[in-house]
C-alpha cells in the first residue's frame, strides 16, 4: 500500500515539475522567437515568384452552412502560388451543389493515380471562371474518416508542399507565408511538417470569411478552452518542438512535405487519431530511413476554429481525442523508450503515454477514492483540504502564467475586462478538471470495448458568431 501511495506522490510531483519545466523552457524559446520574428517580413515571400507552390487540402462533410465562405476565404489567402482542393467526402446535404453553383464548376477529365488507397473518387471539378482557376473540387464516396478524404486529395495534388485544414476554420491571411518559412530556411535537415497556433473563434465577429473583431468567448465553456488552448500551444507544443519531441500538428491547420507523406503511406484510415498518427508515422519513417529531419512549430496564430460550447459536443470531442491518442500510441509502441527515435522515443512518447493518457485515469481514480473516503467518514479532512488547496493554487498559478503568455505574444484580447475575465475563468477551471478526466475515461472505455472510427461532429452555427 505504501508503495502505491509513494507512486501517486511521485507521479503527482513529476507532473508538477514537468509542467513548470516545460513552461520555463517555452518562455525562453518563445522570447527568442518573438524577438527574431519582429524583424521578419512575410510580404516578400507572399508575393515572390520564387516561393514554392502549395496545395491546400480542405475536406468537407455536410458543410453546406459554411463551405462557400470558407472556400472564398481560402482563395483570398495572401500567397502568390497555391491551389485549393476541396474534398466533398460523400456529403448528404447540398455541399457539392452549392460549390458547383457558386464557382461555376464543371466535371473534368482529370487523370490521377491511386498512389495512396482511398474510397472511389467520383469526379474532379474545376471552374470555368478564370478567377477560380486554382480551385479543384474532388467528389468522392464517403470513407468514414477525414484521413481518407485527405488521402484522396494527395492523389491529385500537384505541389510538393501540402496544407491540411478543417474547411470550417478561418485561416489568417498570411498563414501560408508563416507556415512555409521553416521549409525555406532549414538547410541541414529536411522539414517534414510544420504546425502553428489554433485560436478560438467563438464570439468573434466574422465578415466575409475574415475576422473583423476578436472577442473573448461570451460563454463559459469556450472561454475555458481559450485557457486550455493557449496553455497547450504556448506552454506545451512550443517546448516539445524545441526538445524535438513534437508528436502532434493540429488537424485544423498544418503544412507537410507531400513526398514524405506519400512515401510513408499517407494518413491512416483505420483509426481515429489521424492528426497525431500521421506525424508519428512520418517521423518514424524518416528515422527508419536514416534521414535527418525536423518537425517544427510556429508560435503564431494561423487559424481560428469554433470550439464546443455545450457539454454534449465537448464530451463527443474529448472522447474522440482520447480514443485518437490511444490509437496513435498503440500503432507506434515501438517508439516507447526506444533510443533509436531520439528525444521523441525517450521523452515525447513516454510523456504522452504517462501524462496525457494515464493522468486523467489516475485523477478519476483519485476522485472516486476520495468520495469513498468521504462517504465512509475515514478522510483526514485537514490534510485533504491542504492538498486540495495546493493543487488548486498550482493550477491557477499555471493558468495565470498562460494569461501572461497570451498577453506578451498574441495580445488579441484588447479590453482590460477580458484579462480579468480570463483570470476569473482560471479560478474556476480547476474544479472542472474532473469533467475532462471523465471524458478521458469515457474515451478509454469506448476504445477498449471497440468503438468504430468516424468523423467527429461538433455543433456549429455556420459562421454566425
Amino acid at each position, binding site marked *: *500500500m*505504501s508503495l*502505491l*501511495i*509513494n507512486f501517486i*506522490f511521485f507521479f503527482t510531483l513529476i507532473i508538477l515539475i514537468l509542467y513548470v519545466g516545460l513552461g520555463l523552457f517555452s518562455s525562453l524559446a518563445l522570447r527568442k522567437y518573438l524577438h527574431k520574428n519582429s*524583424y521578419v*517580413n512575410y510580404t*516578400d*515571400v507572399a*508575393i*515572390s515568384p*520564387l*516561393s514554392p507552390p502549395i496545395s491546400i487540402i480542405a475536406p468537407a462533410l455536410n458543410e453546406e452552412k459554411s463551405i462557400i465562405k470558407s472556400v472564398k476565404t481560402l482563395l483570398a489567402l495572401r500567397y502568390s502560388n497555391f491551389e485549393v482542393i476541396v474534398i466533398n467526402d460523400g456529403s448528404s446535404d447540398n455541399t457539392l451543389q452549392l460549390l458547383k453553383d457558386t464557382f461555376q464548376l464543371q466535371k*473534368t*477529365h*482529370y*487523370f*490521377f493515380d491511386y498512389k495512396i488507397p482511398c474510397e472511389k473518387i467520383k469526379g474532379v471539378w474545376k471552374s*470555368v471562371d478564370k478567377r477560380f482557376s486554382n480551385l479543384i473540387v474532388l467528389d468522392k464516396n464517403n470513407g468514414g474518416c477525414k484521413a481518407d478524404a485527405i488521402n484522396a486529395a494527395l492523389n491529385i495534388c500537384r505541389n510538393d508542399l501540402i496544407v491540411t485544414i478543417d474547411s470550417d476554420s478561418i485561416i489568417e491571411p498570411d498563414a501560408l507565408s508563416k507556415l512555409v*518559412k521553416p521549409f*525555406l*530556411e532549414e*538547410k541541414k535537415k529536411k522539414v517534414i511538417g510544420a504546425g502553428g497556433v489554433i485560436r478560438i473563434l467563438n464570439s468573434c465577429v466574422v465578415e466575409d470569411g475574415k475576422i473583423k473583431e476578436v472577442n473573448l468567448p461570451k460563454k463559459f465553456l469556450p472561454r475555458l478552452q481559450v485557457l486550455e488552448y493557449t496553455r497547450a500551444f504556448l506552454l506545451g507544443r512550443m517546448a516539445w518542438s524545441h526538445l524535438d519531441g513534437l508528436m502532434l500538428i493540429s488537424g485544423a491547420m498544418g503544412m507537410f512535405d507531400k513526398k514524405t507523406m506519400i512515401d510513408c503511406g499517407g494518413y491512416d484510415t483505420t483509426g481515429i487519431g489521424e492528426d497525431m498518427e500521421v506525424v508519428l508515422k512520418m517521423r518514424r519513417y524518416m528515422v527508419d530511413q536514416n534521414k535527418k529531419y525536423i518537425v517544427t512549430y510556429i508560435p503564431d496564430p494561423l487559424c481560428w476554429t469554433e470550439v464546443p460550447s455545450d457539454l454534449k459536443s465537448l464530451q463527443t470531442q474529448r472522447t474522440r481525442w482520447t480514443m485518437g491518442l*490511444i*490509437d496513435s500510441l*498503440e*500503432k507506434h*509502441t515501438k517508439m516507447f523508450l526506444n533510443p533509436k527515435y531520439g528525444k521523441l522515443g525517450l521523452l515525447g512518447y513516454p510523456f504522452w503515454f504517462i501524462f496525457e493518457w*494515464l493522468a486523467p*485515469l489516475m485523477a*478519476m*481514480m483519485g476522485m*472516486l*477514492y476520495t468520495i*469513498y*473516503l468521504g462517504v*465512509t467518514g*475515514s*478522510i*483526514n479532512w485537514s*490534510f485533504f483540504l*491542504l492538498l486540495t*488547496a495546493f493543487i488548486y*493554487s*498550482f493550477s491557477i*498559478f499555471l493558468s*495565470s502564467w498562460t*494569461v*501572461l503568455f497570451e*498577453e506578451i505574444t498574441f495580445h488579441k484580447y484588447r479590453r*482590460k475586462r477580458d*484579462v*480579468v475575465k480570463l*483570470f476569473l475563468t482560471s479560478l474556476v477551471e480547476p474544479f472542472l478538471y474532473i469533467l475532462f478526466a471523465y471524458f478521458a475515461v469515457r474515451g*478509454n*472505455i469506448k*476504445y*477498449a470495448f*471497440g468503438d468504430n472510427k468516424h468523423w467527429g461532429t461538433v455543433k456549429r452555427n455556420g459562421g454566425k458568431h
Partner: protein
Amino acid sequence: MKKLSLFILAFLIITLISFYFQSNAESINQSLWLKEFTVLGESFKLVDILFVSIVSFISVMIVLLIIILLNRAKMEREKKIKDNLLVKYQDLLLKYLEKEDNVNESLEFIKLASSRFKRQLLITEISDLALNLPEKPLQKIQKLYFDLKLDRDTFRKLRGPWYKKIQGIKELYALNIAKKNKSLYKWVNSKNDLLRMEAQIALVDLSKEHPESNPFEFLGKLKVPFSLWEQITLHQVMVQRDIRIPDFSQWLDSKNDTVVMFCLRMIKEYKQTENYQKIQTATSHKNENVRRLAYQVLGDLKLASSLKQIRGAFKTETHDNRVEIIRGMRKASDLSLIPFLRKVIDNEESAEILVEAVRAIADTGEAGKEILNKMLQSEYKDYNIIIKHVLDHRII
C-alpha cells in the same frame, strides 16, 4: 493495444478496490508528505512546503495580474506619446522638404528629439521616408540626418547586439550611407540568419552609390548556405529597388550549391540566355537539386537545343529530375523533341512522367495535337485517359 487499454482499466479498478480494503488513516500516515526531514539542522515535513507553495502560487498569480494590467496601461501611454510625436515629426519633415531655409525646423527637431527614445523615433521616421524619396529630396533628408548627428546613433547600433546591428543596417541602406560596407562584408557569413540577410540586402542596395562595383560581389564570399528565404528576400529587393543586374552565370561554378541555385533562379527571372552553355554544364552538377533546377531553367528559357543534348541523362536521372526534364521539354515546345517524347510514353510507367510527356507533345501545337488524336484511337496503355486530361483546357 486494446488489450493494453483493457489491462490498464482493470489495473485501475483493482487498485481502487485494494484501497477500499485498506485502512485509510494508516495510509495517510505512511505518506511521504508527513515524513520528517532534517536539512542543515532544521527539521521539517514535506507538508510544510505545501503551505509555502500555496502562498507563493497565489502571490505570483496576483502579481502577474497586476503586472499585466500595469503593462497594458504603460503600453497605451507609450502609444499615445508615440502617435503624438509621429504627427509632429511628419509635419516638420514635410515642411523641411518644402522649404529652402530650414533653420527653424532643424532647431525644432533638436528640441523634439530630446531623449534616446524620441531620437530613435525620428530616425525611424526619416528612414521610412528616405526609402521612397527621389535623389534631390533624399540628399536633403540625408543632410538633416547628419546635421542632427543621428548617424552617431546608427553607428553605435552597429557595435551592439545582433538586433541593434540589424536596426543600424536598415538605417544605413535607407539613407544610402555606404561608408560601413567593410563591416557589412563581415556579417554576410554570420551565424545569425537575420543579420546575414540584412547585410546582404544592404550590400546590394548600397551598390547604387558605386556604379563601378558589383552589387553581388558577396556571392563569391558566401560560405554558409544561402537559404531560399534569403534568396526570395534579396530578389524582392532587386525588384523593388532598381538594382543593376549582373551576369549571374559568373557564379555558376561556385562551390556553394545554394549560390549556384540562386544564380540559376536569377538567370531564369532575368532571362539571361547568353551563357546557355554554363547552364547546360549545371545539368551535370553533383547535386541532384541543382541539376533539377538547371533542367527547369533550360525549359523556362526555351533552350530546346540544350534540352535535346541532355536527352541521354534522362535514363540515369532520379524520378523527380526526369519529370523536370520532360517538363522542360514541354515549356520549350519544340517539334524536334516529339520522337523522344513518344519513346518516353512507350517506355515509362510513372503517371507523372506520362502526363508531362503527353502535355509536352500537345504544347508543340497543331502537329502535336494531331499525333495525340491518333494516339487517342489506340487502346495501348492509358492513352485515352491521359490525353483527355491533357487536352482538357480547364485543367492547367
